[in-house]
């Protein structure tokens, strides 16, 4: 279970947010500029909040009162950024293998297994710059999973894909995340994603998580015009 309470600011945006991701996916939605990506970066440790506490299961990742701040490379959080950030100078397989085991060995076996599982086998030795959007997405996810993270953070994983690919990848991702049973936070602006992925949805606006609950709860009592509009634009 991933639990976080952070305050901080980025530019003129004040972030003051709390979220909890049990096993299963928490979908984080909100308008542009709400601070969703920044919150993810704070969870990862790439941005330092001014104050807060982040725990993952029993482990404390950040606690500003006691001065604990685990560095990014030790937090064991998987990250799939919005533009996938594949390493352009490495092949698909090298990307997925990038994580190292505790002894410093590339996780070759695990990487190979994931590549095959995601159907990327024929592409293993290709440069990542030659892949399609859907393929890149899978490589980014495989790469994050090869590190055996204890939680997964995905930032708009489907936004860059065309409609058809999006449907395919959404269903693939949905099944896979359900099978994984890792606490996950998935940022999206698409109500269809919220419906597909999340039992729980968190709404972020102006740096705060203004509402958190199931789709039904959000529809029954929307906390803001954005929420209202969001749930009404998704089909059910």
């Amino acid at each position, binding site marked *: 279970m991933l639990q976080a309470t952070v305050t901080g600011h980025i530019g003129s945006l004040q972030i003051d947010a709390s979220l909890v991701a049990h096993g299963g996916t928490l979908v984080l939605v909100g308008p542009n500029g709400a601070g969703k990506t920044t919150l993810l970066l704070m969870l990862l440790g790439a941005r330092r909040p001014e104050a807060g506490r982040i725990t993952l299961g029993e482990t404390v990742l950040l606690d500003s009162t006691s001065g604990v701040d685990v560095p*990014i*490379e030790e937090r064991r959080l998987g990250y799939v950024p919005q533009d996938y*950030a594949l*390493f352009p100078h490495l092949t698909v397989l090298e990307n997925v293998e990038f994580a190292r085991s505790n002894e410093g060995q590339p996780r070759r076996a695990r990487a190979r297994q994931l590549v095959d599982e995601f159907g990327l086998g024929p592409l293993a030795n290709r*440069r990542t710059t030659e892949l399609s959007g859907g393929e890149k997405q899978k490589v980014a996810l495989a790469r994050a999973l090869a590190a055996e993270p204890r939680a997964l953070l995905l930032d708009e994983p489907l936004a860059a894909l065309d409609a058809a690919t999006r449907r395919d990848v959404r269903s693939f991702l949905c099944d896979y995340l359900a099978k994984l049973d890792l606490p996950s936070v998935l940022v999206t602006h698409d109500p269809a994603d919220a419906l597909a992925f999340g039992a729980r949805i968190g709404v972020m606006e102006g740096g705060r998580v203004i509402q958190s609950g199931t789709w039904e709860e959000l529809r029954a009592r929307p906390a803001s015009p954005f929420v209202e509009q969001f749930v009404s634009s998704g089909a059910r």
Partner: protein
Amino acid sequence: MSARARVRAHAYLVLVFAGGVLALFLLAPVVGLVAATSPADFWSGLHHPLVWPALRLSLLTTTVSLLVVVGLGTPLAWALARSTGRVARAVEVVVQLPAVIPPAVAGVALLLTFGRRGLFAGWLYPQGWSVTFTTAAVILAEIFVSAPYFVQAATDAFRRVDQSCVVVARTLGAFPLRVFWQIELPLAVSGLVAGAAMSWARSLGEFGATLMFAGNASGKTQTLPLAIYMAFESDLRAAQALSLVLIAVAFGVLLAARATLARGARARVAR
């Protein structure tokens, strides 16, 4: 032709005109030098006694200064690219200074700082000694004038590295040093090589600061540009031949650097 197409055509002609004139101007003196030197003159110029000691010395000193500039400049550039504070910006400006100081002024400044009566003389040297007139002084002068070119190019190259890649690499458990070697450096390498080539070319052609600070002694401090100036005093044709040698060496090395970069890029795409 439609009005828009006409405007586009005119704009294109202006571009070609301006670019062509500049390119020809830059090429013309080299062409003039080649044309003015007969093969016989060139051959006898090559056998001028100043040539080989000067060429050897130039290649030695520029290689050492390049290694120092790249070795110390790369971490500096990385730090400057990653920092946002005022101190970092100030350091960036300071690093640019040698590029705007006239070389002779740089030479005098080096002399006044590292010479026998210089600012640091008491702390750096035993009584009566200084680094002036040594090959090390040549290297120091070359480092001083050429470092800005590398550091600026390298800083820009590191800035252009996608920070998301850096964050992802760290989430995968890579410590910052490994991220630097395996992610940032490979992604910035073309900018670094281009900066290194510029820096090397600048130190190969360095004259004023070397003359002031290191002096002019064959085999020890007389680099190829100094040898050319010396030959100019006695025999213009020897100076012409030596100049062609310098241009050929510089051109050759720069071409080789570009070719290796291009080959590396092609290999990455083709694999």
